[in-house]
Each structure stands twice: as C-alpha cells, then as structure tokens.
C-alpha cells in the first residue's frame, strides 16, 4: 500500500505551512534536536519532517547512531539534558505538542502516543509486579475506572498479548518473565489507553528470531484491531517488508528517502537505501564472494560534511563536486509523486529504475 504525497508540505522548515490534514495522526515539521557534548554540539535530528496517517504503519530505518531513537524521544518530549529539542513543530491529532508544557505532555504520553522500547530486559521496574506496572499506565489516564476496573483491564490486556496463565502472572515480577513475554507486557502497557499512535523503537531487536515473528504478528493484530498508527523504528529490513506500509530511511539525522514499501524494495532511489538493501544477506540469492557492505562509517554527527552526508561512502556521488559541496534538497519523483529522496541524482535514478 503506497501513499500519495500530493498536497502535503514536504518538510521545509519554518515556512508557513497549511494546517495538518484531518486524517494525519502525526505531522512532524522541521524537527531539530541537539546534544551538547564534549566534542561540540551533535545534531541528532536535523530538520526532519514526515507525516503518519491514521492506522498507517510507517517504518523508520537506519543504522545505529543515525538518530532514530532521538527522533522517537523528541516527539514525546523525553529528551533530557544535555540534549534539547531546538526547533520544529509536532502536530498530533491537530495540536502542536512541541509547544506543550510538561504538564500537557504528560496527558499525551501513554494516552495518545505510546512508546515501546527495545530492551525488554531492562524496560520494567524490577521491584514491582507486572500487574502493578500495567495498572500504573491505566490509572494515569483512566482514573475513572478505579482500582478494580484498572486491574480488570490489565488482566484482559495481558490475555490479549497472549501471556499464558494471565491471572497468576499479573502478580509476578519482571525477572520471572522471559524476554519475549516482557516485550508483550510492554506492548500491553503501550496499548492500555488505546493510543492513536504507537512508536515502537526496535521492539524485536533483543529477541530471537522465532519470538520476533510472534511478537510482530501480535503487534500487527492488536494495532489493526484498534486502528492505531505505528511508527516502527528498526534496522531490520525484513520486518519492514512484512509489516509496514511506508518506509522512511534515516541517515545522519535526516530522512534521505521516503517512499511506499514496494518502491523502497523494488526500486530504491537513494544510493544509501540501495546499499542497505544490497547488504542484506538473502538465502534465495546466493552470491559468491564477500557480503557487500557499505564502505566507511557513519558520519560524526558533531562534524558533518558540507555537502551530502552520504557522499564519502556513496558509489554514485563520491568525489563529485555537487555531492561534496551542496546538500541535496528533498526531490519528489514519480508521477504522481510518490517518493521523496534527498539525492542530486534522484530523478535520473528513478527514471533508470523505471526501466527495470
């Protein structure tokens, strides 16, 4: 399922843009987040814009350190010093939460947006029961349920995430759960208040492959039952193909490609996307020789190059003057426009792709 990009402002920061469309759950415009460190200021999120429609599943793909987690935390306002969100708008259900006070944000977190974290082992309070931790999330936003109601809801949630023996398990402690079980609990907590948007930061990275599949299936079912939108942050392209509608590829704090899942996999426009896809080992296409990897290493976010951030490692643009000196603007390709890529040669590549 691809999405059309017609009629949406594509991330020009600061310009007076039309208000977000009604069926957009999330509309991020020009988000900028910085961390002040010993080596200088690190721009983790550099002028990022994207939208998520109701019940849509969007992937944010990238390597470690590209700013994915910072993006998630920035949206929720959970960036702590030495980090700071320094600019942009975050429109959630028609309200700009980037202007919200901490108090107002607290009403939103866990309620309209939820977060699922990546490390289930350390994501739960070790000295509180699972039940208590789910109830905490419920009571925060649904105090009208009262204690009994909240506990009842916690039980049904635990059942929904397919934890066996749910009734007894409510009184267990996190260390009595396995990794996969804990992740299910995390999902239960995240969905407790029927959020409109769920941000899942590498939800299955810490799990083994079989459990990964189970958890993902579960997530898919629950999310579609509730009509919640999902932003899935991952570096695992396999999951993306199965689960998501749209893909946004992140590199050095920006989205270098935004496209529907079919387009991303069939005809990647940005060279980085292509390189990522090529580096995934595929059992159905056995090639002899070393596994292709992307040469070089991700840029130091404290000292970014003047031109395209991918240029040093780009098979296409390395050494080219325009790539080294001018940061590529987001370019829409396709007719009707359906892919946005930040590459000077986006059009050429797209047209070349048409042939394949």
């Amino acid at each position, binding site marked *: 399922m691809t999405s059309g990009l017609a009629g949406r402002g594509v991330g020009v920061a600061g310009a007076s843009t039309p208000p977000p469309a009604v069926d957009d759950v999330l509309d991020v415009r020009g988000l900028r987040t910085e961390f002040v460190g010993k080596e200088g200021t690190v721009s983790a999120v550099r002028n990022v814009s994207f939208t998520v429609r109701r019940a849509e599943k969007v992937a944010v793909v990238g390597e470690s350190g590209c700013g994915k987690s910072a993006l998630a935390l920035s949206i929720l306002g*959970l960036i702590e010093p030495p980090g700071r969100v320094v600019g942009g708008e975050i429109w959630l259900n028609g309200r700009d939460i980037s202007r919200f006070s901490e108090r107002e944000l*607290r009403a939103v977190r866990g309620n309209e947006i939820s*977060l699922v*974290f990546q490390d289930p082992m350390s*994501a739960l*309070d070790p*000295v509180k029961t699972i039940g208590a931790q789910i109830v905490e999330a419920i009571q925060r936003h649904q105090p009208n349920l009262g204690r009994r109601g909240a506990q009842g809801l916690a039980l049904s949630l635990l059942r929904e995430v397919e934890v066996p023996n749910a009734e007894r398990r409510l009184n*267990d402690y996190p260390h*009595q759960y396995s990794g996969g079980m804990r992740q299910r609990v995390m999902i239960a907590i995240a969905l407790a208040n029927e959020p409109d948007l769920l941000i899942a930061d590498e939800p299955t990275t810490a799990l083994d492959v079989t459990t990964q599949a189970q958890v993902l299936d579960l997530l898919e079912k629950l999310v579609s039952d509730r009509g919640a939108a999902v932003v899935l942050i991952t570096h695992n392209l396999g999951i993306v193909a199965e689960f998501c509608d749209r893909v946004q590829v992140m590199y050095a704090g920006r989205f270098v490609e935004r496209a529907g899942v079919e387009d991303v996999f069939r005809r990647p426009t940005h060279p980085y996307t292509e390189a990522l896809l090529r580096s995934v080992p595929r059992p159905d296409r056995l090639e002899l020789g070393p596994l292709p990897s992307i040469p070089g290493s991700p840029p130091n976010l404290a000292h970014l190059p003047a031109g395209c951030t991918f240029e040093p490692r780009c098979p296409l643009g390395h050494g080219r003057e325009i790539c080294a000196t001018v940061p590529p603007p987001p370019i829409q390709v396709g007719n009707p426009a359906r892919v946005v890529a930040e590459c000077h040669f986006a059009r050429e590549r797209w047209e070349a792709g048409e042939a394949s």
Partner: protein
Amino acid sequence: MRHGMPRLIAGRTLSSLSAIFGASLISFIFLRLVPGNPARLFLGQFASQDAVDKLVEQMGLKDPIYVQYYKYMWGFLRGDWGFSYTTGQPVTTQLGHRLPATIELGLYAFLFAFVGAVALAVIATYRRRPVVDGSVRAMSFFGLGTPPFWFGLVLLVVFSERLHLFPGPDGRLSIDSTQPPSITGLYTVDALVTGNFATFADALWHIVLPAIALGLAPLAFLVRLLRANLLDVSREPFIVVVRSKGIGRFSAFARHALPNAFLPTLTAAGLILGQLLAGSVLVEKVFNWPGAGALVTDGILRQDYAVVQAFILLSAVVYVVVNLVVDILYGVIDPRVRVVTAVA
C-alpha cells in the same frame, strides 16, 4: 518459586554461627593474653599470695586452655560475663545500666544519618545541578574523613561554648531535670510517653550534638552509596518507560528510582551498625555520655579489662546477627534474590 528462601536462610545462619565461633576464639585468645594475673588484678596488689592463688583456682585459670574456653563461652551464653576488677560488680549489671544510653544515642545518630542521607542524595541527583552535586560529594568526603571524636569536640566548642546553643558535655540531662521513669531506658521516649514534656525537650536538646557527631560518618557513607545507586537507577531504561506512560518526573523518581536505589543500600545497614558501635566508644567520652562506650573507655583507662572483653565479644555477636538479619531481609524484599530459577 520460593524454595530458594529456606536454603538461603540456612546457609547464612550457618556461616554466621561459624563466624561467631571464630570471633569468640579470637576474643578468648586475646583475653588470655592480657598481661598480669587477672586474679591479682581483681584482688588488688595488697592481697596475699594465698588469696590470689585461691582465686586463680576458683577462676579456673589453672585448667587446660580448652576447658577455660568452654567455661568462658558457656558462661557468656548464660549471661555471666565476669566481674569488673575495679567495682566488683558483675559486668552484666554495669553494661545493662549503660546500654540504654548508648542505644538511644545510636538510634538518633542513625536517624540523623538516614534522613540526612536521603535528603542530600535526592537533592544531589534529582535536578543534576553540578554545583549542588559537587558540594554533596565534598561533604561526604569530609564526613568520612573526620574523626568522630574530634568532630564532637569541634561541635561542642562552636555550638556549646561559643554560641551557647546546645548544652555542654554534661551527659543526657541537665542537673536540674528529673529523670523519667524507666520504661524503655530511652529518656526521650520515656519522657514523651509519660507526658513529661520538659524532660523530653531537655533530653532531646542534650542528644543533638552527640548524635550529629556519631552520625556524621554513617551519613557520609550512606550519601555516597545512595547517590551512586540513584544515579545508576536513573539511567536505567525502565525510568524512561515510566515517563512514557505519562508519569511526571518527580513521581517517576520517587516511585520507581528511589525504591530501586534503596534496595542495595539496605545491605550497608550492617556496616552502619559497626560504625555506630565503634563510634560510640569514641564519642561518648567526649560528651560524658553515660553509655556502654564510655564504660569501655573508662575500663581501658583503669585497666579494668573484664568490661572491655565483654563489650568486644558482644559487639561481634550483635554485628554478625544484624548482618545476618539484613541479608535475609534483603532476600525477602528483593524479589530477584528469592528465586533460584526464572520461570519462562
């Protein structure tokens, strides 16, 4: 799932008993090494040799060493801790009279240390202001490095002698205060319970400076520990998860970070007790506090070692027992320790 518990308790109890046994051996060895003839010391230098010899026989000092040990330990367990050389009174009576004073002082010192440590650690870690954090750290360095006896003296000079805010080293009560009826032996408690507010205030007023002097080192120790634990816990992912539920910063700190930080701090309780025990010996002398510690220091001065010996062995027993209780308690409170295997 709780089958780890009895094993844990049994194991620890066993090692505690062996530790006490070993400690009693050490205590006994050093007791017997005391130069001079205990009988002679007891009877004084003018007693006749015959009398001394008779007492030696009576005290069992001619028995083989293991028999002596056995009698010593058996007596100790039954409450016979020997007789003070100088006063002739049984050591148990003397210690018994003095113990409540030491316990009261220890309790207030602990209260001071605990409340102070929590307050300081929370202040230092909650808002992460480097100046505040730095000064709390500096305080803890000073607290650990200050000799408690000297500090007590400094407190007295500054707050009592110069500023006249607190009483001088005249013990637990002013001369014109009436002693409260002996219910617990703790003057503040007894006075409060019997409605004698004047005495309560007086007793409290007297205990402030010595409690601070005694509690300084435990305070410093606890602050360091708690602060380190709080910092560790605050960085844990589950705190961010709690925040993502919409819980506020302070609530997350108070309801999730603090309890998790307290847990490992609990294990220091035994060490704190050790500090208080040793410290009371030092501080009571400075304040003329009529406690067991002062008894010991007096005993040392007068070479009345029966009291000192009893105190030493008693401290060891109490120390071991408290550590045992703390370990078991930790097992009860921390759900992770109980289970032998995790259930998937």
